């Protein structure tokens, strides 16, 4: 049978822990099946490293189907790799050429400190959510689901925004390390729904304040976030967040 397998050269960021100085390390991996996922290629490399008594490359991943938001690497300078609308785990080796060198780095942003190798700490996102990323509705207190109608158009737009998986690619791609797309998506989801109205003012103010406190930068409309977002969340999210923020300030 024809063998289309690839030889791939890797330059991978290795960093022992948060305090250590990191560096790029070169690896070559042969016989890469083009149907493999990018993470499976790294699995294979890690198996080789383990067998050679080297330390495997640490990287976060979980569902491997693009929905949990746990994986994330900068591949050849682009968060989540070459293809738009995909997570790192959805990248396939057929997207690379035989003999190609691939540069792999962690998310780089001050609010996402490196824990080890390609693993970063994104708990800042959770803290932003704690600040106000919810509708306060205690269990058991909800009215019948059909009490409040939601126009389909708004429900669909809210769903577009709610698709955010919290992976942090938007931050990694932004020259200012802004979390505006992440925050904007959540603010927009609730702003588009009648259920989100009562707390709208408080929510946008609290989430934006927490975003600032975590050290994320401001948005200056580069649009890099939208370009790398694996869920194709539109930068309109940020426009809506700003509108909500202004509305709140004149409230």
């Amino acid at each position, binding site marked *: 049978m024809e063998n289309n397998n690839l030889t791939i050269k890797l330059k991978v960021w290795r960093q022992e822990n948060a305090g250590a100085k990191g560096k790029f390390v070169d690896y070559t991996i042969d016989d890469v099946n083009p*149907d493999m996922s990018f993470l499976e290629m790294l699995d294979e490399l890690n198996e080789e490293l383990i067998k050679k008594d080297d330390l495997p490359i640490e990287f976060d991943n979980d569902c491997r*189907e693009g929905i949990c938001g746990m994986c994330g690497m900068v591949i050849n300078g682009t968060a989540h790799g070459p293809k738009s609308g995909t997570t790192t785990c959805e990248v396939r080796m057929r997207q690379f050429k035989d003999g190609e060198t691939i540069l792999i780095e962690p998310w780089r942003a001050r609010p996402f400190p490196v824990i080890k190798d390609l693993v970063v700490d994104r708990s800042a996102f959770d803290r932003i959510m704690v600040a106000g990323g*919810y509708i306060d509705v*205690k269990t058991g207190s909800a009215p019948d*689901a059909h009490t409040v109608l939601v126009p389909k158009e708004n429900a669909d737009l809210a*769903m577009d925004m709610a698709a955010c998986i919290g992976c942090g690619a938007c931050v990694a791609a932004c020259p200012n390390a802004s979390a505006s797309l992440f925050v904007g998506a959540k603010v927009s989801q609730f702003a588009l729904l009648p259920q989100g109205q009562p707390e709208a003012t408080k929510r946008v103010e609290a989430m934006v304040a927490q975003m600032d406190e975590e050290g994320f930068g401001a948005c200056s409309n580069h649009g890099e976030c939208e370009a790398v977002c694996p869920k194709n969340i539109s930068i309109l999210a940020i426009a809506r967040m700003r509108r909500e923020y202004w509305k709140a300030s004149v409230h």
Partner: protein
Amino acid sequence: MKLDSKIPGGPLAEKWDKHKFDMKVVNPKNKRKFTVLVVGTGLAGASAAASMAELGYHVKSFCIQDSPRRAHSIGAQGGINAAKNYPNDGDSIWRLFYDTIKGGDYRSREANVYRLAQVSNNIIDQTVAQGVPYQREYGGLLANRSFGGALVSRTFYARGQTGQQLLLGAYSALMAQVHSGMVEILPRREMVELVMINDQARGIIVRNLINGEFERYVGDAVVLATGGYAQVYFLSTNAMNSNASAIWRAHKKGALFGNPCYVQIHPTCIPRSGDYQSKLTLMSESLRNDGRVWVPKKKGDKRPPNEIPEDERDYYLERKYPTFGNMVPRDVASRNAKMVCDEGRGVGKTGLAVYLDFRDAIKEFGREVIEEKYGNLFEMYKMITDEDGYQVPMRIYPAPHYTMGGLWVDYNLMSTIPGLHVIGEANFSDHGANRLGASALMQGLADGYFVLPYTIGNYLGGTKLEKVSTDHEAFKEAEAEAKAKYDKLLSIKGSKTVKEFHQEIGSIMWNYVGMSRNAEGLKKALEEIPRLREEFWQNVKIAGSEDSLNKNLEFAGRVADYLEFGELMAQDALHREESCGGHFREEHQTEEGEALRDDENFTYVAAWEFKGLGKKWELHKEPLEFENVTLTQRSYK
């Protein structure tokens, strides 16, 4: 040990209400004196933690990922069932109850399932209020679709990401409680031991996955919401970090394990393509609403699918089950796919796949409609296989997906260890021998939002709990025990990797304790698993050290547990001399190849007690009593 299911008396429809009234209620002022430890932040864990905190309990919430939002409930695609009857097609709480009991092949408790159907409607109300963007009709009302095993449309959905949206709803409720100071989130922690004091569950030992340190947490009750054990097969649709270790630790401390052999093999997964593969990807069974399943009539027909004429195709589900057609329950669909592949009529390179064809649906409704319904699934399929499902039929094959078995719990969701509650997929309770589509989300959220918050009060309010701290001798012992395991793993320095062992146990389980089982194969598994386990403890090779982030070591701990747990699964499958739901014993089938139950001898829950490794587990039986439905041969014809 006497199993007491604590099912309340009285008529089925009144049991839960009566029980809610009979249970002890903790005075609101006293609630804050209690701390509950909740392990896992999926639909069940997050909803339970949030709801208990709202009531006033202090909650510590643990998860293995970097954030509670990542739990694998997020992967659920298709939808969530509820008996709202919005489409006016004759649904009711009774019908949802009946379909679920029948779908589970009459191997679940009537009272539990009825309660599940009762609270299903509250879940929809609750999640809509949380801002879950369900699919809507143009008039602004909620949309429904149908799922396998039902003839009514009762499934609510948010595109193909219903699990994600419901999980984010529960996560946001949890975050609101973090905000109010009632919940403390402890991410990147893996539970490695359960701590028992005075025969009550009073704490856990977790390993901090960043620095490797063992940490002790004390509470008045422990809740395990740690999901299922399908990763025992190595290749499954579960997430990489999904594992059985928390429930297995509890089992070894005395919690009985219910029906471990009941595993769901999901019919619509993307077939495997090579040895490098790390996981299998599921596509929602909602695809079967419009996709038609077929294989060529001829064996070994290698023509491209679009060149095979209509009269040479076998739409075998439509042919064999005219009433339900492509919408038969998962166990039936999976088994039939295996059967046609075993006959040599499978398609694709490996011959281990069947077609799921949208040609006719596209012709009838137009590509746009299909795209709106399933667009993300077609994209996912394209990404993985490099094929366009709109142009050529998709190839699908069954894969391990969900486990109906789990720790045995009573009606209050408490295990046989006082204080240890188990919710969601981690318990055995509501799905019998087969779970219907869109019922996992329903059960996880029912347990977490609407059952446990009541029943835990009954336990806390009615139990004498000694004041203890993490300095207690039991914590020291449990920590030492956990640490010893990891020390030992690292000291072996053998030559075979953790992944290789995982693949081996996975292939034993898939071959002998998979979709179709027989006594000979199961006996073989029972010989091979202990042998492999012994080899593991002599020859496993693990990288790195204990005192830093080390995923290889984490996996080693989990694989070590599968090498014990797999044996119990095989033992349960061997003992159950009948076929029911996901458990198909080749020796027990009808002439047409359908599952043949033995109601006279096996209408019970098999709850297994751990007696020490190398010894047989002891079987305890909880008889299943059916007062409201009649057991029949499950037919979808």
